[in-house]
């Protein structure tokens, strides 16, 4: 395990504090969503500040794992949605924000984006005070192509050093694809059977902003709500399907799952298929339509008789 250089995070913290203090005191934004130190040593938690004096609470470290974009969706009522809001975003979080803008959930002019040059954050099972290494880094960061956010209002002038890492999801997807259908079914049943239907994955996902989820409806009930095998399998299939072409790959769903179900593996598989079929990838670009809300008359139909 080789350490990953996170020395720029101290300078980024300073820059974020100065910038957040400035935009708040100048009245450019009404609030800033960012990260602050939490109680456990080395850990970080989301914070919303509206007072310029609180800007010195903001930090950026390898423990800043959360995707803060979720706080700006209509599913989260805690944040006042009046005036312009500042938000601290890593590359993966910015992809989620771009997606939300594309789905008309947010307007660019209502946001002040503070982008973070990010070398990676810690994996979900690692203690927050741990050093960032090739072994403790989050799986999503091994496949990241968005270390340096662009199109933001402010980005600290730092360049992250990002070594080439083994792409954790790609390797696992290739392993599963090589199995027989029966073996894959057994693998996923083992994973899905762990699900307790806490819906933490849905709660944390920036794209799960529907006011009524199909999976909560009971007239008619399309997906069984109790944590039993049929409902669990259906939930995971429906979740992956509803996020196909929208998921930003922030891996928050996988991070918060108390049962360690590899949710992002399904998301990555769908992303891979969408890339192959329709050349679509989550990016910083704000698209009017996602790959499953548009079509061309040349789309593949070799599977249709």
């Amino acid at each position, binding site marked *: 395990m080789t350490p990953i250089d996170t020395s720029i995070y101290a300078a980024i913290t300073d820059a974020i504090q100065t910038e957040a203090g400035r935009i708040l005191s100048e009245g450019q934004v009404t609030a800033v969503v960012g990260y602050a130190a939490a109680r456990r040593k080395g850990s970080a938690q989301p914070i919303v500040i509206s007072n310029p004096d609180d800007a010195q609470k903001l930090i950026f470290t390898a423990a800043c794992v959360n995707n803060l974009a979720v706080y700006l969706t209509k599913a989260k009522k805690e944040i006042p949605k009046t005036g312009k809001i500042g938000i601290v975003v890593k590359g993966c979080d910015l992809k989620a924000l771009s997606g939300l803008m594309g789905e008309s959930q947010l307007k660019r002019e209502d946001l002040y984006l503070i982008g973070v040059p990010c070398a990676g954050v810690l994996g979900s099972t690692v203690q927050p005070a741990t050093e960032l290494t090739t072994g403790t880094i989050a799986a999503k960061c091994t496949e990241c192509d968005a270390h340096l956010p662009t199109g933001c209002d402010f980005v600290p002038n730092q360049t992250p050093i990002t070594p080439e890492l083994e792409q954790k999801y790609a390797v696992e997807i290739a392993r599963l694809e090589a199995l027989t259908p029966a073996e*894959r079914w057994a693998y996923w049943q083992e994973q899905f059977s762990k699900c307790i239907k806490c819906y933490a994955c849905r709660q944390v996902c920036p794209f799960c902003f529907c006011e009524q989820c199909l999976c909560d409806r009971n007239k008619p009930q399309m997906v069984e709500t109790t944590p039993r095998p049929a409902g*669990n399998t259906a939930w995971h299939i429906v979740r992956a399907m509803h996020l196909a072409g929208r998921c930003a790959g922030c891996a928050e769903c996988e991070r918060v799952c108390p049962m360690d179900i590899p949710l992002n593996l399904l998301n990555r598989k769908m992303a891979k298929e969408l890339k192959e079929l329709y050349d679509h990838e989550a990016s910083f670009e704000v698209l009017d339509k996602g790959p499953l809300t548009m079509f061309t008359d040349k789309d593949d139909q070799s599977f249709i008789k």
Partner: protein
Amino acid sequence: MHPEKQTHAFEPKIIAFVCTWCTYAGADLAGTSRMQYPSNVRVLKFPCTGRIDPVFILKAFQQGADGVLVSGCHPGDCHYIAGNFHARRRFAVFRKLLEFIGVDLNRLQFSWVSAAEGGKWVEVVTDLTERVRAMGPMTEFKELAMEEQWSGAINTPELQEAYNSI
């Protein structure tokens, strides 16, 4: 005269989700033209293939379908202009997901059958029925629906005793 009806050990249940404008009319044409096709197929009519949610397919499998057919208008013929184009992308992706989860895609058929293609309807339905018949019953989703989920295995004598005394 009807040909002698062959009997089989296994009669698969096939659920067909069809659009009302093309495939349903095509199936109707097959019927009014007195064409024979397997009675294994249960037809469910929708306004458009674009209205057919992938979750319907899951539900069909859970409730005992051995094969599923989704059929609608040919590209360009959609009554709602673009419904089948949207469906084409959605199902292309959904197939990949099911495959990754471990479902055998031979149980799932997509087709375009127009209102004039009674013969093609017969062919599609017959092919799918015979293919699924050869594969045997689809058990995966059905078993899930039957199974109870326990928070843990009953793997000690004490637990077994407690369980027996319920």
